[in-house]
């Protein structure tokens, strides 16, 4: 495991002394941050509004999934809303029309997003840079227009009144607190999974592709296969986030497949810090909190969001977490 954590990324130069104290692929700083995160997850619902926290966690997971691609493989997908949204639609449809229990509905949503990611990824990874981004955007727009027209999505109205149901058919999720623990569980599970992926030998190859793809090829790695798998994993996790969101809120709509959602997740990841494990979580927290608590200010929300984006790009190139990590000379 020690070998896994000594890789050097563009965002932060790790201090070997601190890394020695880490475990399970985490550096000591990351372990500390993870501890804070877990404590926050446990304490927050008693202090903050649980429904808001659930929304935050769904978006945090979505941003983490996106970060897996851009931060660790260097692929800028501009169509991640398609997987997030389709995951939500299918989970909603499964729970409402097929009457599945929530955990099965979420799995249906995740698998759908994964299949969609397989097709889109298979087409898109053949190109690099801006072409890759444009292909993912084009495919996502196709998904969007499919959702506008397809009968099962309800068009403009979306799928409404999706029942929360009972977990495994026994634990009713009507209470916000019960639902919260499930969402927190899903989030933490997927978050650790992403961390595991990044720090596996497979993840090391992904990073090598990010740094220098021709060299990775020359070392004998079939980079397309690696990139495709990363794309599918990212899409599946994004689908899980979307599916969870639609079960929480009882609604799946066009908002979640619209290209502006793809843009929002880029914003969250940038604000938090590309290629950091905790960055997307913080970025999502900042953006969602802003949207939620500044809703009364109407049109100013989008203006403030724009100002923050510009400030981030100009002043905090590495994002909030990236800057903090660089300041403390640790890896977060």
């Amino acid at each position: 495991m020690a070998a896994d954590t000594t890789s050097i990324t563009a965002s932060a130069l790790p201090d070997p002394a601190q890394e020695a104290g880490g475990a399970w692929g985490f550096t000591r700083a990351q372990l500390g941050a993870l501890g804070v995160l877990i404590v926050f997850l446990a304490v927050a619902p008693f202090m903050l509004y649980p429904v808001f926290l659930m929304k935050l966690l769904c978006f945090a997971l979505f941003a983490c999934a996106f970060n897996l691609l851009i931060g660790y493989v260097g692929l800028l997908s501009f169509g991640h809303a398609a997987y997030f949204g389709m995951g939500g639609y299918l989970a909603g449809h499964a729970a409402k029309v097929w009457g599945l229990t929530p955990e099965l509905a979420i799995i249906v949503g995740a698998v759908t997003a994964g299949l969609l990611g397989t097709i889109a990824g298979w087409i898109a990874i053949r190109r690099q840079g801006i072409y890759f981004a444009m292909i993912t955007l084009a495919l996502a727009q196709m998904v969007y227009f499919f959702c506008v027209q397809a009968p099962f999505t309800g068009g403009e109205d979306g799928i409404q009144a999706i029942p929360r149901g009972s977990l495994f058919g026994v634990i009713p999720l009507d209470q916000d607190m019960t639902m919260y623990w499930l969402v927190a569980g899903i989030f933490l599970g997927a978050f650790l999974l992403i961390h595991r992926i990044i720090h596996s030998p497979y993840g090391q190859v992904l990073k090598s592709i990010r740094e220098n793809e021709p060299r990775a090829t020359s070392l004998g790695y079939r980079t397309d296969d690696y990139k495709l798998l990363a794309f599918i994993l990212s899409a599946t996790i994004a689908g899980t986030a979307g599916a969870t969101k639609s079960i929480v809120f009882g609604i799946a709509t066009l908002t979640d497949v619209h290209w502006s959602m793809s843009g929002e997740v880029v914003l969250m990841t940038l604000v938090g810090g590309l290629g950091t494990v905790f960055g997307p979580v913080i970025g999502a927290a900042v953006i969602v909190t802003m949207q939620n608590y500044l809703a009364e200010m109407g049109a100013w929300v989008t203006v403030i969001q724009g100002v923050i984006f510009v400030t981030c790009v100009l002043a905090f190139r590495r994002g909030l977490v990236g800057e903090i990590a660089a300041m403390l000379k640790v890896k977060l």
Partner: protein
Amino acid sequence: MSIQRRDLLAAGAVTALGGLPRARAQGTQTIRIGVITDMSGPYRDTTGPGSVVLTQQAVQDFLGGGRGFQVEVLQADHQNKPDVGANIARQWFDQGVDAVVDLPTSSVALAVNQIAREKNKVHLNSGAATSDLTGAQCSPNTVHWTYDTYMLAKSTGAAIVKTGGDSWFFITADYAFGHALERDTGNFVRAQGGRVLGNARYPFPATTDFSAFLLQAQASRAKVLGLANASTDTVNCIKGAREFGLHRSMKLAALLMGVVDVKSLGLESGQGLLLTESFYWDLNDRTRALTQRVRPKNQDRPPAMVPAGCYGATLHYLKSVADMGVAAAKASGVEAVNRMKAMPCDDDAFGQGTIRADGRKIHPGYLFEVKTPGESRNPWDLYKVVATTPGEEAFRPLAEGGCPLVRS
């Protein structure tokens, strides 16, 4: 009863800490009304700040004599996203808001409809068009006040055929809303003995050039061109139609358009246009009196239809609350709405009316023709009344809506 931005920020900060507003609300008998509307999107001008002003005006008119309880008005922007709207409503209801008002955009309205029912609060809808709110998706917690797609289609379709426009061509936005408007209007046209000669459906969104569709319409030789779309698309179609000279051979009927759209379009392009609304500021002495009260607060504009609906609905809700007692009204949204249905309505915007068992507010629908620049006497003198459809005929009959509340 005005709210400063600073108060809202403070409220936001308090909300973040949780729980506090609820305690305050219980202590001093305050009815809290939240206006959820479009403050930043395409419907800002027809709803948005105007809806907030008119809701506050209703509170002011109601509290004028002193009532023994307080009313607080909050506002939020749903950005036309159903999930954002549902989230705001859920949070507000959990934190002691008793009623939400306005909710333009059908998808948002239907989403909040579910939340209001789940939490047993009150949903006073003014801005949404969908007739499903009082049909398949009707709820005992909802009153749909101002208008709906059925009423627009009936008033515009049937009334125009009666005045001689018996052959139609539709330009339709190719999605559920456009299809519904076209279908409903077409049915009324046929029911009155008129004919639909054809239609052109354009991809929505993403169409900005309507010339091909307008030429198709012109070639059909229909007497009336029905525009089954909304906001900027409608305005673009009308401008295009003018450029192609369609207004010389056809009457233009906008199936969903408001006074603010006409104002921004201008009388030069808009003259002769036919459209339906249930409120116009210059209808009678009472609407003019209301306009006089509101105008200084409303950026010197007369109220539009949807804000007027917010006024009527809020006023009637507050009267019902006073009638049944604040504690009872806060305890059950269903009971509050039942009381609203039991009491006859009367306000300056819509006059006398009633609320049906399915939550539908009943009042007349007016078919207006946009004046020519020569006929207009002041900047907001835009309409003349062509036909009035009485309330009993304007809305879908109770039995045909398929509302489960009616069957029981």
